[in-house]
């Protein structure tokens, strides 16, 4: 017997209490540190799952998944046109956020974005034509996630759109994402109209070439992992707040922009555009997350979530152990704050691939780093800290690369473990923008919600049966 009992003698006691609160109080009264758990019984029938039906060691699998995610080195290496660079992309394919969905089941804002994209592509002249084309079956729809891609909100990527290319230098895989349009009437919120297409055209013809040239002049690329880590120290959580990340990006690319500029006025417009869009960095933090998590897919027996995405109709997750299989449930309602003249009645259910940030260990899970955004939910900075602390309950590890100053530089909660979600009954917390339910309107607010339970229940069962 190792004599740890003897080691306990004479050492200050620190107690964890599960159960009667009076016991915790009595111990505290004696001047001893107590952590009094908010213990709750696990959901009915949920027992600890250490091995799958065929004997796969879940913990061991998870360690491998975590090793891969932590080892990731996402770097922005360049840009390209979607149909040229995204594997499997073609002239009549439109990518969208979330799990697979047919045109018939597609929600309003996603339909709006698809129709807008068809018009932008020149495949339709107006909304009516676009709708007929979309319905005709001549356009192939696929989730971004099936193409190493992620898209915020409607997540629509059409063939002509320029995309960022993020390479995970540790594994050599790539992830893609469009350029962020800003807030207001924008395609990703399902808005349509000349203003939307004009901006998209400008992004294609001026923003993209200038950024592309600048990036090409930075041979080592831009280290997004380091940038996310810094942004977390500057009040971003890199999902709903990207003000610091955007500033850091502008700072990093600034000299290259100047060196490669052929037209200073055009360069100034690019800088202004990025500067006025606090969310510009979202479309870099998202593919950084995608590139980081994807190498973990295919580790047999793992209970860790590698995809969590919504299309405004369904919410879907995939596990590292079952990368081909979506577990879905209806998309949830967002509790939020609305722009003037809009209300809950106008809101579309939860939508977008931006939950890749939570999947990769930041975003809402790093809320403690971003106290300024908590008022989104009528909350307080302490609520932000509580959100992060709560998410540690359902994650397998902590990301040493991403730390939170206010938590004594503790690593962010990393790797949603479907077993822990089931055992604790705690569902991942997501903060998000809200799109109008009708096509063509756009953003109406922002808010917070929890992932739906049903897909975690189903995924847990499927894992146990593996």
């Amino acid at each position, binding site marked *: *017997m*190792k*004599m*740890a*009992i*003897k*080691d*306990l*003698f*004479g*050492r*200050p*006691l*620190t*107690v*964890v*209490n*599960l*159960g*009667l609160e*009076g016991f*915790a109080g*009595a*111990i505290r*009264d*004696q001047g001893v*540190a107590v*952590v*009094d*758990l*908010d*213990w*709750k*019984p*696990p959901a009915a029938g949920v*027992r600890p799952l250490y091995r799958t039906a065929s004997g796969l060691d879940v913990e061991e699998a998870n360690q491998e998944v975590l090793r891969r995610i932590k080892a990731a080195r996402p770097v922005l290496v360049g840009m390209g046109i979607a149909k040229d660079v995204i594997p499997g992309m073609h002239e009549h394919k439109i990518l969208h956020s979330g799990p697979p969905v047919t045109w018939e089941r597609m929600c309003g804002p996603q339909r709006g974005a698809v129709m807008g994209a068809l018009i932008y592509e020149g495949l339709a002249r107006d909304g009516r034509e676009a709708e007929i084309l979309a319905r005709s079956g001549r356009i192939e729809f696929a989730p971004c996630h099936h193409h190493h891609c992620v898209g915020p909100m409607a997540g629509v990527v059409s063939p002509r759109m320029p995309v960022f290319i993020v390479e995970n230098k540790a594994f050599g895989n790539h992830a893609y994402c469009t350029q962020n349009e800003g807030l*207001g009437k924008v395609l990703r919120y399902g808005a349509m109209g000349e203003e939307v297409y004009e901006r998209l055209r400008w992004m294609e013809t001026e923003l993209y070439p200038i950024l592309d040239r600048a990036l090409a002049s930075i041979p080592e690329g831009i280290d997004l992992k380091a940038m996310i880590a810094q942004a977390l120290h500057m009040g971003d959580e890199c999902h709903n707040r990207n003000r610091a990340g955007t500033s850091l990006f502008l700072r990093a690319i600034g000299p290259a922009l100047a060196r490669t500029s052929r037209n200073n006025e055009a360069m100034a417009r690019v800088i202004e555009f990025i500067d006025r869009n606090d969310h510009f960095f979202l479309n870099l933090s998202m593919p950084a997350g995608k590139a980081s998590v994807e190498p973990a897919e295919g580790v047999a027996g793992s209970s860790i979530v590698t995809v969590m995405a919504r299309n405004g109709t369904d919410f879907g997750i995939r596990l590292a152990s079952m990368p081909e299989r979506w577990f879905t449930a209806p998309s949830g309602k967002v509790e939020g*704050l*609305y*722009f*003037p*003249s809009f209300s809950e009645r106008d809101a579309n259910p939860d939508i977008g691939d931006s939950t890749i940030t939570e999947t990769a260990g930041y975003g809402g899970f790093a809320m403690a780093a971003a106290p*300024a*955004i908590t*008022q*989104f939910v*009528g*909350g*307080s*900075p*302490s609520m932000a*800290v*509580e959100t992060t*602390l*709560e998410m540690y*309950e359902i994650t397998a590890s902590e990301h040493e690369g991403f730390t939170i100053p206010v938590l004594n530089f503790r690593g962010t909660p990393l790797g949603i473990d479907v077993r822990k979600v089931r*055992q*604790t009954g*705690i569902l991942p917390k997501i903060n998000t923008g809200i799109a109008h339910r009708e096509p063509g309107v756009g953003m109406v607010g*922002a808010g917070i919600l929890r992932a739906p339970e049903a897909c975690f229940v189903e995924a847990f069962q499927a894992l146990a049966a593996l």
Partner: protein
Amino acid sequence: MNVQTLIKTSEYHDSVKLMLVARELSRLPGVRDAAVVMGTEANKSLLEQSGLLSQPAQAATPNDLVLVVAAEDQEVAKAALKTAEALLARRAEPAGGGLDFRPRTLRSAVKAQPEANVAVISIAGRFAADEARQALAEGLHVLLFSDNVSLEDEISLKRMAHEKGLLLMGPGAGTAILNGVALGFANRLPRGPVGVVSAAGTGLQEVTTLLARQGVGISQGIGTGGRDLREDVGGIMMLDGLQALQEDPETRVILLVSKPPAPSVTARILEQASTGRKPTVVCFLGGTVPAAPKILPARTLQEAALTAAAALKGETGKVQESLDQEQAGLQERANRVVEALTGTRTRLRGLFSGGTLAYEAQVIWRSLLSEPVFSNAPLDPIHQMSDSARSQGHTIVDLGEEEFTVGRPHPMIDQDLRLRRILQEAQDPEVAVLLLDLVLGYGAHPDPAGELSEAIRKAREAGIAVVASVTGTEEDPQGFCRQTRILRDVGVEVCESNAAAAQLAGLIVTRLERAGAARGR
């Protein structure tokens, strides 16, 4: 419809705060719509779409804060603007507001508090084993207070603890004192040279408080749970606890308490105790302790405490002498009590909250009374009460047994059940003596004597003698002297220990029986 506008020049708030204020405004009665935005072109076009773009709003610059309210009438709209100003001035919470987060799982508790070294588990039994296993996996010593943990789980948990060199105290372990800290139902004790391992929770409380009241402190008090010394569990925790105390430099005398263990376990424990250098007092309540080097047998908890205290001074020879002296004093008290009693009452009724104390009383009465004592937890199964709710002959009831505690707090915490049982016994014309135990300390009722005093007074008025002991220390939250005084004030014969109280009650009954027999002749 009335639209009112307020422009606050060069006032900046972040957009989220503005949205919050707008939301609050639009919830005000009579308000149709509200906007609180910075005067950017984009925002102004939004206002226009909503029909809120008044002339002053039109003129606002991006540095101006624009507040617009559309309401039923001018009064409501103006009041809403005032509310908006107040809301803008309000801070979400006082700076440095406290964090009220409680971890949900053991793992995250340990993450949050890496120095954690002990888990106290008192959740429902069917979940307790999993959590205890988790706690051991995290390297924590465990006090497993929960009952209803299966024997298989107990064995596997104790083996795991043994492998890791950790304590797994329980299941059903109510008491532990680690490094002077009382865990679960335990008393405030001075630290000192006696280390205790006990398979009986109230037994641990009784011996440690008796020692404390003699001025002897406790190094460690380890509870093992009642099943530890069964053959199948094998005394894993008593052996590990004993070894730890043998190696602990603070501990000079060791005290072991249990009901009689399985013979094979007894042998292992005595062998382990004999190999050590420290005097080891062994109290197997109701059983015998084979002679062995370093072993000091004790028949009762009281004797165990006296022996341990004497062993510290090397005066164990004097223990019997002081017990004899006490015996003589108790006999005198018994005589006095009997003289004051009237009628032909002869029966003894014990109403207990501490299981081990009820057991100790029965051990004492076994050699003192001529008639059997029935119980819901008897020494011998033939004296099992047919109905725990009805006393028969001499009876002692352990109110902490399962039939009384399902869906109800333990009688150490809630005296209600005992209170009613005292009144029930007071109605019984056969009852001569009531014997009670009062257990003080953390976790226990804040004022058990005060709670029981009215019922005791009624029993006294009915002509019943009441004898009690108080298991506790002056430093306990309830205060030993205060509790004792309350009992004395309602006419209770308070004794120094549970053993002495049982002795006194037994002596009273013996006298009454003899007197009755004399009358009968």
